């Protein structure tokens, strides 16, 4: 028996970064808002106790803040001719759960995408000619430009207390900032993080090679800061437990540190946790959402009617909800019909290990966003003529931890156990570092999210199915930028480097990144995209789908700031246009 509840104005699904942003924006507009979160309430002092939060086994290896495959998973295959099988234990990507979502356990790197990233197809066509773009790559323009998003990037950065140095400020290049970034209307709200040793060495080496390194934009609070909501962050103390962990001292930007204390002061907002939304409820016409159906931890199902439904459940679960709700048409890679699940992309990463004599990097003194980067080989910042690929990567010295279980590099050929292993481990632990690249991921016809025919989740719904392998384009890109990263690494003066570029096939087991994107992409017309430029569903005007699911392709950066900027941008459109006149915001 599904119990029907009194109507709310807005139902939000997922209380991470996007959910918190949409919730506070809608609550500020005076609406009656409810946000659902399938995981538990999580707050700093009660759940991220400073006496035990720095526990690698619990949070990094056993991933207590993440959703388990036991609770929810997907099936996976590299290609359509294979049978997709369940991801029985997460590895490659680690989806969050609980209030704060991935925003609670992210590292803090906060990039803006480049202007050309938003108009990728137009730009590459203009520069290199339409024929140069492989037919198999589904890269597209986003339907929104960097300039339109700029004020909302600014808003996100000021809410999150991002620390960095502007590269292009009101049209003028600022030495020490990123020369390739889009224009900023304002300096960062906080200065760059104080640097540890390895990034300092990296920056020196990069400069000597004629590159222009800059501090990585960081959400770890380089100083005490009070954001526009009146919420205060403390300075980061470099504990080295950003990734996969909660922050114990209010320094890492997270929904709970930056938004939720202000959000929870609003009596017109309710957080309904440990409540999983199963589907969006649609009316008979299929063009209007009437609310959501959710299940609580006892198994009781409820119908929550709402005038406006906003999905902010993270990229992949957003798409999963669209499938479960029967919204739109599932993408078929053979006929190429349907849009839900199309343009799935990821991140293409590589690393270069550096072994030194007589250097002490104290790798355990670290913050997730602390580092130095070079963007010379990212996006279309360099001439791709004749290279055989598009895209690029940021090259960074950003070692975020000295975790002893996970991060004990030894030179190739070192045994994995025994006396020699131990000596090499001890000799190298403090004197190794890594230069890494984080690269673009371009969608193909064959990579997509679909519905699995065999496996069901715990609620009896068909699981979502992931078909993905690295496209040749991306592997070539990564090999190229890894070489560039190796050059910088060599210039840092190590006795040995070990460069590891990714080779196919994509393997679901080792952790690589949780930057899954696409599946419900944004665009300028309903034939090619699921949501319009305001992330409003073309088919269902009172449904907004906000998150990395909207990205037509992924760029060579962490996606968080872009996801947050899109959320503020969409919220602005809802408050200033949609609420005054509910209906499609863009005429198809």
């Amino acid at each position, binding site marked *: 028996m599904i119990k029907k509840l009194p109507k709310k104005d807005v139902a939000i699904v997922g209380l991470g970064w996007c959910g918190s942003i949409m919730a506070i924006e809608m609550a500020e507009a005076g609406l009656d808002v409810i946000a659902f979160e399938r995981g538990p309430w999580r707050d700093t*002092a009660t759940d991220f106790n400073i006496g035990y939060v720095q526990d690698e086994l619990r949070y990094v290896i056993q991933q207590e803040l993440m959703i388990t495959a036991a609770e929810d998973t997907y099936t996976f295959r590299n290609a359509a001719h294979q049978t997709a099988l369940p991801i029985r234990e997460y590895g490659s990507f680690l989806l969050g759960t609980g209030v704060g979502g991935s925003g609670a356990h992210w590292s803090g790197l906060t990039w803006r995408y480049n202007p050309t990233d938003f108009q990728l197809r137009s730009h590459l066509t203009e520069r290199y000619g339409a024929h140069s773009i492989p037919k198999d790559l589904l890269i597209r323009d986003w339907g929104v430009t960097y300039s339109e998003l700029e004020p909302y990037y600014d808003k996100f950065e000021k809410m999150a207390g991002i620390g960095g140095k502007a590269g292009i400020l009101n049209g003028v290049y600022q030495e020490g900032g990123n020369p390739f970034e889009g224009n900023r209307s304002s300096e960062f709200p906080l200065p760059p993080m104080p640097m540890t040793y390895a990034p300092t060495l990296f920056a020196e080496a990069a400069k000597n090679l004629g590159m222009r390194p800059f501090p990585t934009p960081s959400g770890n609070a380089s100083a*005490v800061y009070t954001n526009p909501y*009146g919420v205060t962050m*403390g300075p980061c103390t470099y504990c080295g437990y950003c990734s996969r962990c909660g922050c114990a001292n209010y320094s890492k930007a997270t929904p709970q540190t930056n938004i939720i204390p202000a959000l929870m002061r609003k009596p017109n907002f309710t957080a309904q946790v440990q409540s999983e939304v199963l589907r969006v409820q649609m009316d008979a016409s299929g063009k209007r959402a009437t609310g959501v159906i959710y299940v609580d931890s006892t198994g009781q199902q409820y119908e929550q009617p709402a005038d406006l439904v906003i999905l902010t459940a993270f990229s992949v679960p957003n798409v999963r909800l669209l499938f479960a709700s029967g919204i739109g048409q599932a993408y078929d890679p053979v006929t190429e019909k349907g849009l839900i699940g199309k343009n799935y992309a990821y991140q293409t990463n590589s690393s270069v290990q550096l072994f030194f004599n007589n250097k002490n990097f104290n790798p355990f003194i670290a913050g997730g966003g602390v580092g130095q980067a070079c963007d010379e080989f990212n996006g279309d910042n360099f001439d791709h003529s004749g290279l055989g690929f598009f895209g690029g990567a940021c090259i960074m010295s950003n070692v975020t931890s000295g975790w002893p279980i996970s991060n004990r590099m030894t030179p190739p050929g070192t045994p994995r156990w025994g006396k020699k292993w131990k000596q090499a481990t001890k000799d190298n632990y403090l004197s190794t570092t890594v230069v890494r690249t984080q690269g673009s991921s371009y969608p193909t016809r064959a990579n997509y999210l679909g519905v699995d025919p065999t496996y069901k989740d715990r609620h009896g719904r068909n699981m979502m199915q992931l078909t993905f392998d690295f496209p040749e384009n991306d592997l070539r890109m990564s090999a190229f930028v890894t070489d560039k990263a190796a050059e910088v690494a060599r210039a840092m003066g190590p006795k040995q480097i070990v460069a590891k570029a990714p080779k196919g096939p994509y393997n679901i087991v080792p952790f690589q990144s949780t930057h899954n994107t696409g599946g419900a992409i944004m665009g300028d017309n309903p034939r090619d995209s699921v949501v319009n430029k305001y992330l409003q569903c073309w088919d269902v005007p009172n449904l907004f789908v906000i998150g990395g699911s909207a990205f037509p392709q992924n760029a060579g950066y962490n996606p968080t700031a872009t996801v947050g900027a899109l959320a503020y941008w969409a919220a602005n459109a809802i408050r200033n246009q949609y609420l005054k006149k509910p209906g499609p915001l863009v005429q198809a």
Partner: protein
Amino acid sequence: MNKAAVTAMCGALILSPLADAANTFFPDIEKGRYLTTVGDCAACHTVENGPSMAGGRAIETPFGKLVAPNLTPDRETGIGAWTDDQFVRALQQGIGHEGEYLYGAFPYTAYTKVKRDDLLAIRAYLATLPPVHNKVVANQLPFPFNIRTSLMGWNMMFFTPGEFQPDPAKTEKWNRGAYLAEGLAHCGTCHNSKNFLGGDTSDGHLKGYTLQGWVAPAITGDDYRGIGLWSEEEIAEYLKTGRNRHAAASGPMAEVVTNSTQFMENTDLLAIADYLKDQKSDLQRPPKLDAQDPRMVAGKALYTDNCSACHMSNGEGVAKLFPSLKNSGSVLAEDPTTVIRVILQGAQAVATDAAPTGPSMPSFGWRLDDTQVAALATYLRNTWGNAAEEVSTATVKTQRMDLASKP
């Protein structure tokens, strides 16, 4: 109730048959609303999430339970049938409308200072509240404390009735501050040292007191243990937002900020600050413990490993987020109850609209044993220029057991 609602109420009342209320002008009712907030009447007279001022909230005293009466205009169970004189007499004399003595949990010892016309403004505001039929039996104390006439003796010893008399040698601002602090804001009700009968001691004015398992620290103008090192603006900021560069309000003071002081006018807060800073006393600094004392050595290791990531290696915390331990009245109070409690259980600092963070200290009782907590508390009290009596393992043990027994 906010200003808009009061305005609407007044509009209705001018036309209503409630003669007393209808004769009162809007400015008085608004003044009354403000003064009611200053007096924090709701803290006792409004049940959590219940109807405004309808009483029924139990107050735990060292002598047993009292229940705050109904102050709504209901004629049967509230104060609707009282005369103005009866109302004023209750607050200024501690005498109920049937001539009975009121218990000192109702701070008439402070409210006696409030001028008649301010009290009538409060009454006018209370008369605008929705009448609620709620019969409250206030006296639920056990024998012999339930005999009200014994209060006559208590009053003789500990109660000096009389409206506040301004000191002509002081400024208008100081006098306003004194009038509020000693009267409606009744700071001394918690912050004056008291004897075992609950009466103020003769030499304990604003020197601190422990109640409900928390220490209300000294708020004299002394640098040591008092708030002498806080500027007037910082005192006002603390009362307005629950925190300043030195401290954060938690425990019972968090409620005071939430219900009362965060709504006060800045000029009034600065006046109170002026007055408090002028209250110098004789708080003596004991000798500091030697840094080589084994408890201090262990305490330093404990502090480095548990505390310094928030309270910083210099003990000064982070402004608006983590209170300073250096020069902290709570840390230095003679009674270490708050320090021990906060280490064991953690604490939630108050959140206000102006400062919504409400940063909370995590609990350490699961990690540190009694000896370690005692060593850590001793270290805090004797480092960075602090000096205070050491804390014993036995004190921690007793307090841990007490806290565990109260669910």
